[in-house]
């Protein structure tokens, strides 16, 4: 058993191999930074939503504030015009102008408040930009940890687990990196919809009228349809008709079919058995409205329609999924050894590999030139390191952990006594055949290597 961490106080000879492996280790870690850096950049490019959402929020606040200013100002101006054109007595005119002045004062106060809100949101946008910038190879594990937390908070917000989302954000101190306040707005609407109340949703549609129109959203129409259905359900037919005239008819030009279908419920009534109309009265229509709202909401803020967790999880599961994952002896380090992950991965594609990769069954380490694969007489492959270790412990005897075959380590191969054959252990070695194409010589070789070059290896 090695106590690798114990320093050697006296012997320089014994430090030599340590420093040798140290060099190898540092060489290994020093080699990939450029690819690591590229990987980091690529992963940062996935963070569109992270920057976009607070910015949309900021924009929205700016626009709302601006609208208030415009409205109030034109109200004041037309107030003056009215006074000038009307027939006011002297005192009335003074009073009128005074009220306009105080109205302007009120507006200025509002403007200041609005500006504070804008400032806070601008700040949040900056914090996020800085957070992305702060990611480098040194703080990677901490940064990744925070990212995972952000992803989970996003999941909980979308699933309406608000309290836990707030708690996780608070205890990890990442409030500025997640969109809890944005989702508060959605929560009000969703809660109301779940209580069969469409008014907050309709108010939300009015607030975002222009952008919803631009994206040809029919959320408002669907909300109106539901309100109509509720009137029919209550057998309030006259009001239903009046409602339809006022709110549904304008949608006739674009959504005539749905309009007609809903109108027919007047004839069929709530307890109809006719399936076309029966579904319209079902309570799950409200769930459908919630989903529709969530979709529009996400679109408006530049979020992905699916929770980030689902997206990353799906990609990760696919990349990890191999036929071996579902076998009984799947290593426990593989997430796909767990029932839950296996279930989630079931409908997903398998990963694709172009290069062979050999993981030692015993040590679970990836084999490479430093620790090449060797094959026992029965065809089972293990890493040199694992076999050497085993031989050392058991007086040169090697027991195949999968078949129980005992081999003696005495006469052949790299270490005496065992018929071990080095299978081409050139994994990870690359060399240029021509300037343009690089052949990766490994168990899985791209292209056929001229044997002369091979011999030089």
């Amino acid at each position, binding site marked *: 058993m090695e106590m690798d961490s114990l320093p050697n106080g006296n012997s320089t000879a014994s430090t030599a191999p340590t420093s040798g492996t140290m060099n190898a280790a540092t060489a290994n870690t020093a080699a990939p930074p450029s690819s690591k850096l590229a990987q980091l950049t690529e992963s940062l490019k996935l963070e569109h939503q992270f920057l976009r959402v607070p910015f949309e929020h900021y924009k929205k606040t700016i626009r709302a504030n601006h609208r208030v200013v415009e409205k109030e100002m034109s109200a004041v101006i037309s107030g003056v015009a009215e006074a000038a054109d009307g027939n006011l007595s002297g005192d009335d005119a003074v009073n009128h102008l005074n009220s306009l002045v105080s109205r302007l004062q009120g507006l200025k106060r509002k403007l200041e408040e609005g500006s504070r809100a804008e400032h806070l949101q601008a700040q949040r946008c900056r914090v996020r930009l800085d957070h992305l910038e702060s990611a480098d190879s040194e703080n990677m594990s901490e940064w990744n940890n925070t990212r*995972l937390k952000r992803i989970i908070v996003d999941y909980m917000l979308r699933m309406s687990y608000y309290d836990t989302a707030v708690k996780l954000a608070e205890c990890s101190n990442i409030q500025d990196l997640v969109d809890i306040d944005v989702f508060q707005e959605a929560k009000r609407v969703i809660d109301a919809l779940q209580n069969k109340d469409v008014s907050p949703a309709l108010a939300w549609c009015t607030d975002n009228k222009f952008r919803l129109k631009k994206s040809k959203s029919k959320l408002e129409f669907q909300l109106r349809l539901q309100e109509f259905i509720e009137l029919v359900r209550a057998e309030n037919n006259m009001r239903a008709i009046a409602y339809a005239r006022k709110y549904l008819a304008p949608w006739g030009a674009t959504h005539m079919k749905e309009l007609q279908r809903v109108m027919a419920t007047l004839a069929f009534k709530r307890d109809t058995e006719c399936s076309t109309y029966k579904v319209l009265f079902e309570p799950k229509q409200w769930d459908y409205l919630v989903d529709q709202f969530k979709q529009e909401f996400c679109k408006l803020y530049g979020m992905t329609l699916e929770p980030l967790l689902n997206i990353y999880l799906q990609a990760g599961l696919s990349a990890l999924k191999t036929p071996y994952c579902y076998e009984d002896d799947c290593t426990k380090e593989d997430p796909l050894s767990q029932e839950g992950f296996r279930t*989630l991965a079931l409908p997903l594609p398998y990963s694709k590999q172009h290069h062979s990769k050999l993981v030692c069954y015993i040590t679970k380490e990836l084999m490479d030139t430093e620790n090449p694969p060797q094959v026992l007489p029965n065809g089972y492959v293990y890493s040199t390191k694992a076999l050497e270790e085993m031989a050392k412990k058991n007086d040169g005897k090697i027991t195949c952990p999968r078949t129980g075959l005992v081999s003696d380590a005495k006469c052949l191969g790299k270490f005496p006594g065992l018929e071990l054959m080095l299978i081409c252990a050139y994994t990870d070695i690359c060399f240029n055949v021509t300037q343009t194409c690089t052949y990766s010589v490994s168990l899985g070789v791209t292209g056929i290597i001229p044997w002369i070059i091979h011999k030089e290896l």
Partner: protein
Amino acid sequence: MDLNTIKDAFDCAAKKQKLSHSKAEEVIDQIRQEIENALERMQSINNLDSELDYRSILSELKTSLHNIAPPRQLEGPQKELNAALVKYVKALEKSFNLDISKAYRNIDYDIHTLNQVVAGHFYRQGLFDVGDQFISEAGEPESTATIKSLFLEMYQILEAMKNQDLGPAITWAATNSDKLTQSGSDLHLKLHTMQFVKILENGSRDEALQYARTYLAPFGSNHMADIQKLMACLLWIGKLDRSPYHALLSPAKWDVLSEELKRQFCNLLGLSCNSPLSVTIAAGIQTLPPLLKFMNVMAGKKQEWQSMNQLPVPVELDREFQFHSIFVCPVSKEQATEDNPPMLMSCGHVLCKQSIMKMSKNSTKMFKCPYCPFDVDAVQCRQLYL
């Protein structure tokens, strides 16, 4: 990706917002000024009580407000602001992947399973309160929390170690010492070593000696060399930092030891040492970029994507995500399967069975190894088990 240009674009937008804001304030003040002036004039002529004068003052005010033309004054800065806002959005869209759900397969996740995975992750990370709240808010059954009790002990031990208290860790290691030895771990000794060094640091030779006799001696049969070194430390008591053994004092040792304990603890529980959710998401983050690139190229193949049995592009994951041996036949470029296993040829090179069958015309003739000038007899090829 150039974050600086994006930052500049944002600063520009924020600046324009400030401009537009101060313009609005300015215009409001202007209007108020005009109205207040008019009021003053009206009050000064109050005594004359001439209706005509009111009229003229009011219509003058109307004209002057019309001349100020607030809407037009606001329009300019507002336009610039809008342009800056649009520019920032464009900058974002240019530098980032606009829609990372492009490579998403529309399947209904079982929410229940997903929630279990998330709850398990919380407990594994030691976020016990968050986990409890999550379970109750998501309405998952209490049984989801079974994993919690397993990890409570581990985090108590780790928390104590953060405060340089090895007591709970040593107690745990002593209770599980057989299992630890069985799995080939010397954690128990490492913990005692750390405790011994702590005593040395405090400069109490007798106590250190006593500790070594009681706790280190039993490891003598297997770890004599290590214990000898530790005993030599006694010579440098009080100045260990200047001794050849100063590395023992490194604060990083505590982190290493904590990591090791975590690994062994999970190992004894029969669990992976990293949260499986962390591992999967990390793999997903590496996988998405190439996948999205592919989806951009194959924009029209969205339909196919939904039913593919294998990812359309190879994804090179880092070492830590390699859990299984994969053999890709260098001739056919196909992944080996149970029906098409890797075969070792007599020269030591490996191909898949089907490739060998093809090259040997169903084992009827010898063929040349594609790697070396060796004539291979298909009959002598042996199957490999990776």
